[in-house]
């Protein structure tokens, strides 16, 4: 599904290498988790994959189902099936959540040469998905993320993911700012979307999210590289001993 080979990335504005040869294969139907200390390059990886400005790929490749992601505009990557759940979802005053969602859904459909969703179809689909995420009619009407609590913002991200039905989902620290109940709700939303045809890359600092979203593979990232990969037990080891032991082992 997602294939990253020897990805090297530096900041555009300064001479600072952030990613130093990342290799990663996420298969359809699998959940991969990336853990790592602050500054290891986890968020940069998610931004580079989704096409944010400010980064320069100096070497390597990233493909989604064989298509070169790095050559596409952010909206083209989205239409190709990539979704990034933001660590800090952006507030957009004056644009209704529903309007935004419908614009996004139909823009992607249009880009793929599919028919646009009718208003009635769309409304039905949103209501179904919003209900299971406990997003009420008021939240749907309000401007995008404006005045939302941390938990509401993250639930709104998952609602967007559910509506856009991407092939490859990247969750960037979706657990940050969530209390236990909110984390459970968000995780259930993510788990409901797990399917054979869909891959997940879950970026997190902490093991606790992985109690709810059970990964197939766990990677540890440090200093711009994936330094260790393993099963779910690797996350438990981090939780117990911190990153110190693993990093020392590598040194």
């Amino acid at each position, binding site marked *: 599904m997602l294939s990253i080979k020897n990805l090297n990335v530096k900041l555009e504005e300064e001479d600072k290498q952030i990613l130093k040869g990342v290799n990663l294969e996420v298969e359809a139907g699998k959940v991969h988790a990336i853990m790592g200390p602050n500054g290891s390059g986890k968020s940069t990886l998610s931004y580079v994959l989704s096409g944010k400005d400010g980064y320069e790929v100096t070497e390597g490749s990233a493909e989604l189902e064989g298509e070169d992601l790095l050559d596409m505009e952010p909206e083209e990557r*989205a239409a190709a099936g990539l*979704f990034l759940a933001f660590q800090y979802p952006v507030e957009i*005053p*004056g*644009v209704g959540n529903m309007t935004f969602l419908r614009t996004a859904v139909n*823009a992607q459909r249009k*880009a793929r040469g599919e028919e646009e969703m009718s208003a009635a179809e769309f409304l039905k689909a949103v209501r179904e998905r919003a209900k299971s995420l406990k997003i009420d009619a008021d939240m749907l009407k309000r*401007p995008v993320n404006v005045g939302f609590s941390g938990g509401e913002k993250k639930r709104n991200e998952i609602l967007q993911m559910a509506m856009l039905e991407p092939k490859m989902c990247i969750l960037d620290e979706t657990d940050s700012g969530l209390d236990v109940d909110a984390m459970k709700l968000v995780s259930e939303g993510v788990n409901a979307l797990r399917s054979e045809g869909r891959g997940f890359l879950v970026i997190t600092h902490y093991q606790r999210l992985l109690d709810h979203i059970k990964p197939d593979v766990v990677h540890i990232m440090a200093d711009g590289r994936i330094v260790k990969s393993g099963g779910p037990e690797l996350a438990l080891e981090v939780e117990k001993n911190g990153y110190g032991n693993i990093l020392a082992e590598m040194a």
Partner: protein
Amino acid sequence: MGEAAPKPNPTEAMIAAHAMPDTGWSVAARKDALARLRAMGVPDRRDEYWKFTRPDTLTQMPAPTAAVFDPDEAPIFGDVDRLRVVFVDGVFDAEASDDLSLEGITIERLADATSDLHWARDLYGALELRGQDPVERPLAALNTAFATDGVLIHVTGQPSKPVSLIYLHKSERSDAVLHHCIKLDAGASLTVLENGPAAARFNKLMEVEVADNAQFHHIRAQGRDHERCAATHIFARLGAESVFKSFTLTANGVLTRNECILELTGDDAQAHVAGACVGDGAFHHDDTVFVTHDAVNCESRQVFKKVLCNGATGVFQGKILVKEGAQKTDGYQISQSLLLDGDSQFLAKPELEIYADDVACSHGSTSGAIDEDALFYLRARGVPEGEATDMLTLSFLAEAVEEIEAEELRDEINGRMAEWLARRRG
């Protein structure tokens, strides 16, 4: 060697080019206004409130010409049930207008109201005169002196639909001066819509007396003719528990100066004035606002948003004056510009002057580009860059548009702006 001819005095040149009726109840007010105008002189760049806006095109004689623009779109407010009053190049067009009778309101043409006991006698020029202090507004005095047409609207009840003033522009050389007087009796309410370019050069003044518990709503869409220029004034006085809300949408126009002078004289009154403008290229847009609080527990809001690109200029000069004794005043003022490129400029002069000690007044002014994080967020959801930029532009303007109370009219304005932006994108 002969002496150089004396430089013509621009004030006298303007006066000479205009004519005043010699009979009727308005003559006394017109003569007073003419004396004011002579004393003040037409504005020039040395005047404190004309530093950011060159008044030349508004004062030169003859007026600059302006090509008639074909907007290639259905006129705004077309689907709104309204009473239409049409002016063509500043002249009332009875045939194009609806029947002016409507329950709860009387509408007369200024030129037709000849009775010496006419109610408008006490209003015509009176609020304009009050609004000359402390800031001089010579173009308003010029208007009172020489207005050739306009409407007098007396609202005694709750008319069932808005009065829609439609200003058509057909001549490249038109130089129109219109003066409207609107008087709302206690408890009455009225919505006035205005749209259209009006003339090559347009000087328009509206005096609005809002009595206790009355409500006045004003929604205006200025015409899109690129070469037109306009100087408009609204002077309003608000009684106790009354409401005044005015919103203006401006796109295009080489020069627009919109002044709004509001005086809150009754307790618990509310005055909101808002503007959204989208300027591209040869566009200079100036909002000059003066709100005076002279009563207890009143609220005022000034919300101005300007989107500028390709060398367009936006100006905001807004003042809140809280007089002694105007306690519990809640004053809010915000002016913001969204600069879509590095060629455009926004000049702002927010002012607060407060003589009461128990008030809450805030003001803010910012200039910025499209928020890159928000743009990326929208694009990451699949919205193409152009469409995403439009969404964020509308988002930026939203706070001003939200000042329109009627949902139907708000949607009309939003829809129109979205169409313009989409069309610009091609």
